[in-house]
């Protein structure tokens, strides 16, 4: 009740000089507005980041072949052809920290359905494990292809949502036939939508097919390379290489284990572009990397003093870097906003000091009719807080409006956060109390007689 009366008096006092109150509180308005906008945009960015991380597949590692170089000219990452499907099998078998692994070959070519055509972002040849690695197992429609399809090199595929849209105009694609490089593929399933990732890469603009089919039929590897690859790994446990018709009638005599060890094949023709795998948990990623390196170095017969002929990319590291960067940016901007709040607070203090001086006689009068020092202190403190809260409220509206505008204009992800609003209210009240205290204290210490005599 008493607080209410004081607050009302404060409001009335401020209304007497609305222009000054407005200008005084402008610093708070801008400060709080900036805080709100930053927090909302920051929350939106980190929300989008989280979504992206989730859609990229949690705990995902990518192994790519190392860099080939010739005469000092490096050809860039992935230019050697050292990774094989057997490596993938071996990793699955020998690395307990790895949950699942999928070999991948990539193609980029035209896809035709009826009189429509489209070049998808990527055509991935892989195994059903890919869906598990990417946390993408739930399909929108149909069934994924199975290991049998991979073994047989069947011409089946799963389409991403964007392809369904481009080629089928939204109607059901399952059971239809599309042509990739003039090879007919039966659509067995449609992926659930994933949207764009953070780099703007449309993850739905993708076709998944058995890697064998892509490798041997689409990217046009000859039967003889398949043949050789089969013979290379004929003694390994890998079942994939045994399933090609060529594998049964090997052109070369079977090599013994000793021969293989003495004279390793320098190039494996059944090379794949990368292996994508998932660790059991993000905590086990370092362990998984260690185990994989060990297995691959052994399989690739790399001596202790030689560098790896592959590299392992850790998505977690990428996402960690990205999220630290966003967090850092948000914090930097928040710091700027905080500085603006402090500047606003100094403005409040300044005007409150002026106000105390101007109203010295009023203070004297109030004391003469019975106001105690603490009543005066409370009155000026409440006035400062009311001023700041009004500014804060305007700042919330401004900041929220600003972030909505950003979403509307730039299509940035923005998240309204009640925590930000609560913080803004607390912060502006806090600024009022901190910066209003000194003037209010000064007012409360006035001597009534001298205050009344003040001209």
């Amino acid at each position, binding site marked *: *009740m*008493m607080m209410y*009366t*004081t607050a009302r*008096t404060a409001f*009335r006092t401020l209304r*007497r000089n609305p222009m000054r109150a407005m200008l005084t509180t402008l610093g708070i308005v801008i400060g709080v507005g900036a805080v709100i906008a930053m927090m909302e945009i920051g929350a939106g960015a980190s929300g989008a980041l989280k979504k992206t991380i989730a859609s990229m597949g949690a705990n995902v590692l990518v192994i790519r072949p190392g860099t080939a170089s010739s005469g000092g000219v490096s050809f860039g990452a992935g230019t050697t052809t050292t990774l094989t499907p057997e490596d993938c099998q071996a990793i699955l078998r020998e690395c307990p920290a790895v949950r699942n692994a999928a070999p991948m070959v990539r193609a980029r070519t035209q896809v035709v359905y009826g009189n429509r055509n489209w070049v998808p972002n990527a055509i991935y040849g892989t195994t059903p494990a890919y869906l598990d690695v990417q946390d993408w197992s739930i399909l929108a429609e149909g069934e994924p292809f199975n290991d049998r399809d991979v073994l047989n090199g069947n011409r089946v595929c799963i389409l991403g949502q964007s392809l369904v849209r481009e080629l089928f105009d939204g109607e059901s694609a399952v059971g239809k036939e599309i042509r990739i490089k003039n090879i007919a593929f039966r659509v067995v399933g449609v992926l659930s939508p994933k949207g764009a990732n953070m780099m703007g890469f449309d993850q739905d603009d993708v076709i998944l097919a058995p890697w064998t089919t892509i490798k041997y039929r689409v990217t046009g590897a000859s039967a003889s390379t398949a043949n050789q690859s089969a013979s290379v790994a004929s003694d390994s446990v890998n079942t994939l290489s045994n399933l090609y018709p060529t594998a049964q009638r090997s052109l070369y005599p079977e090599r013994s284990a000793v021969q293989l060890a003495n004279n390793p094949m320098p190039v494996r023709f059944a090379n794949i572009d990368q292996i994508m795998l998932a660790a059991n948990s993000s905590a086990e990623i370092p362990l998984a990397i260690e185990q994989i390196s060990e297995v691959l170095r052994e399989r690739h017969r790399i001596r202790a003093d030689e560098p790896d002929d592959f590299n392992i990319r850790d998505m977690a590291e990428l996402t960690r870097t990205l999220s630290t960067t966003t967090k850092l940016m948000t914090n930097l901007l928040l710091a700027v906003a905080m500085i603006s709040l402090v500047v606003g607070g100094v403005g409040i203090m300044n005007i409150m000091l002026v106000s105390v001086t101007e109203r010295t*006689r*009023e203070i*004297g*009068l*109030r*004391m*003469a*009719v*019975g*106001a*105690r*020092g*603490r*009543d005066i202190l409370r009155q000026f403190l409440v006035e400062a807080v009311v001023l700041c809260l009004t500014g804060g409220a305007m700042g919330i509206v401004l900041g929220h409006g600003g972030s909505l505008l950003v979403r509307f204009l730039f299509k940035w992800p923005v998240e309204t956060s009640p925590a930000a609003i609560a913080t803004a209210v607390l912060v502006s009240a806090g600024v009022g109390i901190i910066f209003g205290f000194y003037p209010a204290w000064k007012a409360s210490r006035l001597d*009534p*007689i001298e205050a*009344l005599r003040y001209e």
Partner: protein
Amino acid sequence: MELITLRSITKTYQMGDIAVPVLKGISLAIRQGELVALTGSSGSGKSTLMNILGCLDRPSAGEYWLEGQEVSQLSADERALLRNRKLGFVFQSFNLLARTSALENVAMPLSYGAEHLSEREARERAAEMLTRVGLADRLDHHPSQLSGGQQQRVAIARALINRPPVLFADEPTGNLDSKTSEEVLQMFERLNTEDRITIIMVTHDPKVAGHANRLIRMEDGVIQGDAPPAAEPNQKTPESAP
């Protein structure tokens, strides 16, 4: 019974190294229901005495008994409470809050009182006080919309809002012309006779002093004379008060 008793009150201001004695031993007794005029040349210490009487200031030495309570040694907060409950003050320069209605000006002391009136009760009480000083039709006027005499009457209503037994007025007519001065003085007389409020006012004007039933003359920090005004014999002697 004595409402106010002063015993050897002194007040000395310290100006750097020099001590300036302003009140040099004032002893005084004022009864309930008196209307006292305090006169004296400028600088004789009238305002200083009034501030001590009004508990705005503390004497350097001496005793001040108010309604049987020694108040000269009270703390600032205790004096504030006392001012709110028992003392009314009227100033030469009205001291109304600008851009604030007469009603709110009058109700202002209530917000510092111990009794917490509701908003509505406070407004009713303020309106009642303004009616008593004849401003029932000026409740929502701001000070700038009122004449000097009306402003001083608003100030009187404000001083009386907590129904104090005693009212102090330091040159209440100093800023008023003779006609409005007369109005204000009649108001004091009425409050004194009808409501039995003890009034102590400072004035230079002998005509104003004529309204009082006791005249105290101060000179250079001491009381020079203390008697009923000589000009007109006073019917309302202090003894007639209950």
